[in-house]
């Protein structure tokens, strides 16, 4: 059984490798692209414009601040989907190293999550831009953003720790996960208002989706209303359990997976 000081030693021992892997992710993302860091701002802006035009005109009366509503949901969801996808592939992509030297393999999915989270932090400035466009000032509800982002990060790391070893054993997890992500997307209320659905008998679908709870809290922080604190608690517990499950799954698989790479 490992004690706390053992874990501390492990973390400090591996800190340098983790930081190198994170650096590699950030550097390679922006190398050889003329737009550089601007690209991570343009992408969410463009998708938000399209979503606002398409779904905004579909509604009979476009609600105020619809663009802010969309950009909040869209940016949080796309972080989760792109990061879990790349974390899923991370062990497979680095197989030439893993097969050759002994190294702590769990650093690969975690590094993937960390560097994507840093880029996500940069792209959050898009939200500030849209707030300016909508002439919204931040209110005292903004504190909700911090727990929402922390839970989001933990949820992503947990998903990555489960997906990456499974992907080594079952190569078609990649496609299956895309399907699951699409279902999650539709259950997140990104481009529609959940009010009607919430009041129907199917409201529990949204309530059970931790991503919806995270997006709702994030949105509450940006748009200035108080999201249901129980939802936030639920998603927090969900993320912790998923993270622990991820640690368990990864520890079970890490010795075996080198034979499948």
């Amino acid at each position, binding site marked *: 059984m490992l004690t706390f000081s053992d874990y501390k030693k492990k973390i400090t021992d591996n800190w340098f490798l983790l930081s*190198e892997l994170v650096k*590699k992710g950030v550097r*390679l993302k922006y190398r050889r692209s003329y737009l550089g860091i601007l690209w991570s701002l343009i992408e969410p802006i463009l998708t938000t414009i399209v979503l606002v035009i398409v779904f905004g005109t579909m509604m009979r009366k476009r609600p105020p601040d619809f663009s802010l509503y969309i950009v909040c949901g869209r940016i949080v969801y796309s972080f989760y989907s792109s990061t879990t996808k790349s974390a899923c592939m991370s062990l497979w992509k680095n197989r030439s190293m893993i097969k*050759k*030297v*002994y190294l*702590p393999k769990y650093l690969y999915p975690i590094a993937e999550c960390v560097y994507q989270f840093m880029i996500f932090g940069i792209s959050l400035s898009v939200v500030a831009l849209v707030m300016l466009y909508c002439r919204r000032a931040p209110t005292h509800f903004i504190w909700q953003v911090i727990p929402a982002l922390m839970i989001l990060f933990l949820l992503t790391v947990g998903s990555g720790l489960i997906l990456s070893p499974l992907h080594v054993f079952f*190569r*078609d997890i990649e496609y299956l996960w895309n399907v699951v992500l699409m279902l999650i997307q539709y259950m997140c209320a990104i481009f529609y208002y959940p009010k009607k659905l919430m009041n129907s008998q199917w409201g529990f679908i949204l309530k059970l989706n931790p991503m919806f709870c995270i997006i709702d809290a994030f949105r509450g922080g940006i748009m200035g209303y108080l999201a249901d604190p129980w939802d936030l608690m639920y998603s927090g517990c969900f993320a912790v359990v998923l993270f622990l499950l991820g640690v368990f799954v990864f520890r079970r698989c890490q010795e075996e997976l*080198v034979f499948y790479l």
Partner: protein
Amino acid sequence: MANKKRKKKRRKNLFKGYELDQTRFENDEDRDFAVKVENVSMKFSMGLKQGRSSIKDVVIMGLLPTMWKKRQQEKDKDAFWALTDINLELKKGDRLGILGLNGAGKSTLLKTLAGVYRPTTGRVKKKGVLAPLLELGAGFELQYTARENIFLYGAVLGYRREFIEEKFDEIIEFSGLQKFVDVPIQNYSSGMRTRLGFAICTAVKPDILILDEVFSVGDAKFRRKSEQRIIEMFDTNVTVLFVSHNLGQVMRICNKAIILDHGRLIAEGDIGEVAPIYEQMTGEIRQIRQAAKAGVDVGSLETTPTGGPLSKEQMDAILEKYRDFD
């Protein structure tokens, strides 16, 4: 006193590689051993990579238990032992040559020692920092420059940042890439990559050094230089595990040797004892091959593996067995 102790500890930490939990020594009596391999066997399933790669199949087979059973049986039938019951003990400063034909299990043994594979049965104990030199330069990030790769590769090998910063100039100088430090690796020739890989791997002063045919790369000048560097390391009482097909090189570098054949340890001892056995083994194969090519009657050969004349069937069997041998 305490301060001195701490200082020493910090110094040691600088060269620290990753330690496996299984590598710690429990008893003091084991202290002078660098590597201990106890009853290590390694089982591979041949169809592992192809089999069970789809979750759809698993779901379908989960519904049909008979099919699942059949699949498991097939898997067991495919299994083969890459290593069978290997026992080894190396003292600090021993230099072991690992000889054997292709597919004898040499690389599997090295990977088990390096901690990449966990043995199916038995255990491996190691003491100190281990530096693996396997397939140099295979793990480089192609879009990265040499400078960035040195830090990344060093981190993967378990070096500390300060250590790499300290050794950076030495690595560049040894690999002779001063002009290309900030050029992406993808523009390098394979020889340049190997040189860089060798320089990074040998920058550390390890306690155990694993060499898997590393001298067969690079030009003659670099080959001499790298062999020189390895021999310099011997002064620091490093334990070496060396795989090569070149018996001369093994005899130059090693003081002990083992021969592996189909995953079994068939000879073990000082290099002086083992080298003739290996020579005989390969010599016989060569002789039989030449004889078969020339169409000479095998019975007329003086040395045969069994001591007596060989029948046609026996010769065919031997040729078949050593078909991959070069």
